[in-house]
């Protein structure tokens, strides 16, 4: 094989890695913000499934992938409100409520998805070559010959990082996650802030799911997210609750996904079960290593993570 052929394969592989990473990037950023205000939402997998499902159906019915994407995003957001109501208003156990949301998403999409199984989508996002930027050798064709949703995720990661660290909104939301009582004393409405960012987390999980079925794997299967929601939750720790570091994590894991498909497509002798295990195994190792580093560096999760807040009790 010629050198240019190799380059083409690498470009294709990494370009797919960005797409696979985008599926993880949205929910990871969403969960970072939910956790930053103290709400642990283990329902990411369920919300992604719901987003993937509504994204798929609306795209299939309208042949408009953008409408489908919006539907998936909203569906994820609506699903997150169940968790928000239970953990914020009713002060229920966030771990159990989140798990219930994941079971709910799986049950809901299995039940209503029955008649859509193995159906395909004819419409998808089209790649949009960015002028000038896409002319950068190699990196240009990997990063800037993508679809609008991928560009949206670049902007989102940066904007959310900016909001978190450089604006009053960010200061307030971090205050809620670090010390809810003090935040309340500062005049911040803790309940409202928690609702908003839990909802944002749901919207983003929906976005990841919708991008999966519309932009990456344009068909419907039971449990099509295949644990990506859990990988996103792990990536939150990997990213140490920082939206920009989430980009690194998401693309790293996107690369593993892309590599795994590439290897399977080229007919490798490595058993497919081992290849399929790879993302989970690597996430597992990464999360152990990150946790050790986090502990050594004294970085820690938001102090109020998982703790219900009540204004009446002092």
């Amino acid at each position, binding site marked *: 094989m010629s050198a240019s052929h190799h380059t083409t394969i690498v470009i294709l592989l990494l370009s797919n890695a960005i797409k696979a990473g985008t599926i993880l990037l949205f929910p990871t950023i969403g969960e970072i913000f939910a956790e930053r205000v103290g709400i642990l939402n*283990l329902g990411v997998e369920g919300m992604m499934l719901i987003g993937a499902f509504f994204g798929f159906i609306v795209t299939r019915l309208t042949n408009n992938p953008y409408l489908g994407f919006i539907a998936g995003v909203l569906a994820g957001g609506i699903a997150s409100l*169940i968790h928000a*109501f*239970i953990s914020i208003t*009713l*002060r*229920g*156990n966030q*771990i*159990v*409520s989140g*798990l*219930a*949301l994941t*079971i*709910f998403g*799986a*049950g*809901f*999409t*299995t*039940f*209503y*998805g*029955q008649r859509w199984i193995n159906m395909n989508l004819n419409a998808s996002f089209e790649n949009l070559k960015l002028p000038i930027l896409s002319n950068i050798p190699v990196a240009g064709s990997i990063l800037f010959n993508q679809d609008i949703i991928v560009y949206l995720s670049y902007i989102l990661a940066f904007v959310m990082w900016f909001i978190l660290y450089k604006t009053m909104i960010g200061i307030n939301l971090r205050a809620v996650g670090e010390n809810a009582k003090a935040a309340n004393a500062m005049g911040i409405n803790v309940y409202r802030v928690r609702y908003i960012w839990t909802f944002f987390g749901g919207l983003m999980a929906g976005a990841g799911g919708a991008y999966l079925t519309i932009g990456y794997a344009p068909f419907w299967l039971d449990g099509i997210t295949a*644990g990506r929601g*859990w*990988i996103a*939750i*792990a990536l939150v*720790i990997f990213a140490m609750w920082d939206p920009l570091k989430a980009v690194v994590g998401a693309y790293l894991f996107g690369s593993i996904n892309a590599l795994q498909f590439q290897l399977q497509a080229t007919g490798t002798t490595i*058993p*497919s*079960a*081992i290849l*399929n*295990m790879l993302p*989970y*195994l690597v*996430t*597992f190792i990464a*999360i*152990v290593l990150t*946790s*050790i580093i986090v*502990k050594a560096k004294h970085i820690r999760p938001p102090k109020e993570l998982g703790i219900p807040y*009540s204004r*009446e*009790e002092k």
Partner: protein
Amino acid sequence: MIYFEKRENISAKLKVVIPVVSLIIGILFGALAIVVVGINPYAVYKSLFVNAFGSWYAFSETLVAATPLMLITAGLILVFKMGIWNIGAYGQYIMGAIFSSYFAIFMPPGVSKPLMLTLMFAGGAIGGAIWAVIPAILKVFWEVNEVITTLLLNYIALYVLKFLMYGPWKNPKSFGFPLSKPFPSSAQLPVLFEHTRINLGLAFALISIIVIWFIIKKTNFGYEVRVIGNNPTTAKYAGISVGKNIIIAMAISGALAGIAGMVQVSGIIHFLQVKINANYGYTSIIVAWISYLNPALCLLSSILFGGLESGGYSIQISMRVSYGIVGLIESIALFSIVGAQIFLNYKLRWKK
């Protein structure tokens, strides 16, 4: 404005009412979901009920499904009581099934039944325990979040099983299907009641519930588990070795999930395959929660959810209603019960 006012003491009446009402809410929302797809929910529920409790055979199948739920839930109660979130029963169950199947597949055929079953039992317990102790050690020594590690280990266990079933453990005579060799009769748990699939595993399950009840109520270890659950910091100052207790409790919990996996392959399926109902691992979390982490109530809830699972499988075949309905009902019941906990300690008040 509506607000919550603290109760003087926990309402005992509500403790009974909440799980019952939660289940009813689950069933009502399930009915709504069924109506939307244009099927008569009454007919579906009637069929589900008949297939779960309507005859001795139907009930025996409910008990078959309840057996792994009891085993896994008993272990989960122990770890949940100390505030350790083992979400990995799914993977521990698979590992138990793999370890025990090793003996059934590879031991020479002449091995006596008692020896074979003992080896398989031990294999199941050890396989499950290993898979639970890994995240426990990571948690105790490096504060690695156990929710995430136990969950990721579920997927890893699933792919280990798939690797074995599509590769080295596949039966060459299975026409390409991912199945192991059938187990010899020496590797099959004895059936307890004729014409049913209820096997010795049910006895294991009942014993495990009693043992867990005994551990929690009557032993020093159980006392420490409860203290840690109330406040780990206090426990540490009281001289309790929190880390050691976490590892032991997780080992017990994993071992019970592993035994459940062993019971399923040895008592029900009689070979190893990819689909071994490992989802019991997730259902058990709901069962544990709906039982208020009480071993006696876990017996009742396991039978109830066993009926839901077993009836759910039947209506999928007889009425073509997707099995997803079971997950819908279970999750909505779980939402209700988690959301309703607040009413145990608080009253709803109205202030102008």
